[in-house]
């Protein structure tokens, strides 16, 4: 069974799973979870080096010998200006010109600031970045981000780390229906059920961190999410039946034995 691969900015990806690298119990579990996920795109944050213990947080030293596409984020940024600065620093690493724009002001919900996100997308896309904005699940906004040059658009299912799942499936379906760039559902998913739903609604991929890293068994959960992505995508491509109010028998009654 041949499936069409996800392609972003000309790069063909072998997996529709983007996985985060934060909050795992330890580096060993993290690496095993990444392997089990089959993910090719890994997300990171950019932070100041702790000069007292410089190698403590450096994530890349744990990943040597594995080949990935790096997707640094601009988390911590409250304005487009701050996000642009972080994006340029990330690019100067020489590791990637992909950037996940993440701009949040409200610490309680961490919901993205749509206006600042749009501004940063415009600027960074013009500078030649491969821009993947994390955004609200608003169909009009997602279209505007696409027009501003986003290589993929990443609406949240629910606020970051909540595990509440797809709070507005109607919106998400509109977003995927009208998109001309890949739609990656980023944030808020909790379990394999949420992932399958996102994929059945036509998402091209999902980005997850907390639901894997904080599961009781992160490695097993990474594997569960991988299968959910595949199952949901196949189901979407196969085309589900219409919902009906009353029953339809699986076998007809014209040849029924006692008639």
């Amino acid at each position, binding site marked *: 069974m041949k499936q069409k691969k996800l392609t972003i900015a000309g790069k063909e990806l072998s997996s529709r799973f983007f996985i985060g690298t934060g909050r795992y119990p330890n580096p060993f579990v993290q690496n095993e979870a990444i392997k089990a996920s089959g993910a090719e795109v890994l997300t990171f944050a950019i932070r100041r080096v702790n000069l007292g213990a410089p190698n403590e947080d450096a994530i890349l030293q744990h990943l040597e010998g594995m080949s990935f596409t790096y997707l640094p984020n601009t988390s911590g940024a409250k304005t487009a200006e701050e996000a642009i600065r972080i994006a340029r620093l*990330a690019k100067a690493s020489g590791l990637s010109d992909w950037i996940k724009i993440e701009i949040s002001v409200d610490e309680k919900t961490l919901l993205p600031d749509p206006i600042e996100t749009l501004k940063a997308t415009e600027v960074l896309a013009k500078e030649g970045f491969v821009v993947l904005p994390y955004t609200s699940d608003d169909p009009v906004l997602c279209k505007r981000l696409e027009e501003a040059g986003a290589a993929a658009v990443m609406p949240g299912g629910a606020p970051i780390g909540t595990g509440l799942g797809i709070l507005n499936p109607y919106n998400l379906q509109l977003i995927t229906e009208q998109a001309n760039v890949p739609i990656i559902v980023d944030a808020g998913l909790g379990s394999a059920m949420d992932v399958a739903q996102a994929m059945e609604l036509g998402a091209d991929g999902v980005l997850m961190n907390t639901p894997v890293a904080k599961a009781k068994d992160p490695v097993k959960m990474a594997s569960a999410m991988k299968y959910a992505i595949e199952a949901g995508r196949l189901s979407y491509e196969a085309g589900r039946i219409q919902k009906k109010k009353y029953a339809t028998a699986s076998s007809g009654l014209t040849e029924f034995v006692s008639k």
Partner: protein
Amino acid sequence: MNLIINGEEHQVEVSTLEEVISYFELDPQLVVTEVDGNIIERSNWSVTELKDGMKIELVQFVGGG
């Protein structure tokens, strides 16, 4: 020389950005630098001369979603 590195004052005997990296024993491949708001490419670290009071940012990739 007195430098503001990652928001803190540091008294270090260095003259170039490259020497700052080795002073803190950082892995050059993992660090990105900014001096007074300008990103300095790795290839220019050895020719970036520092002056008293300059603001230096040393950043890296850490775990995140």
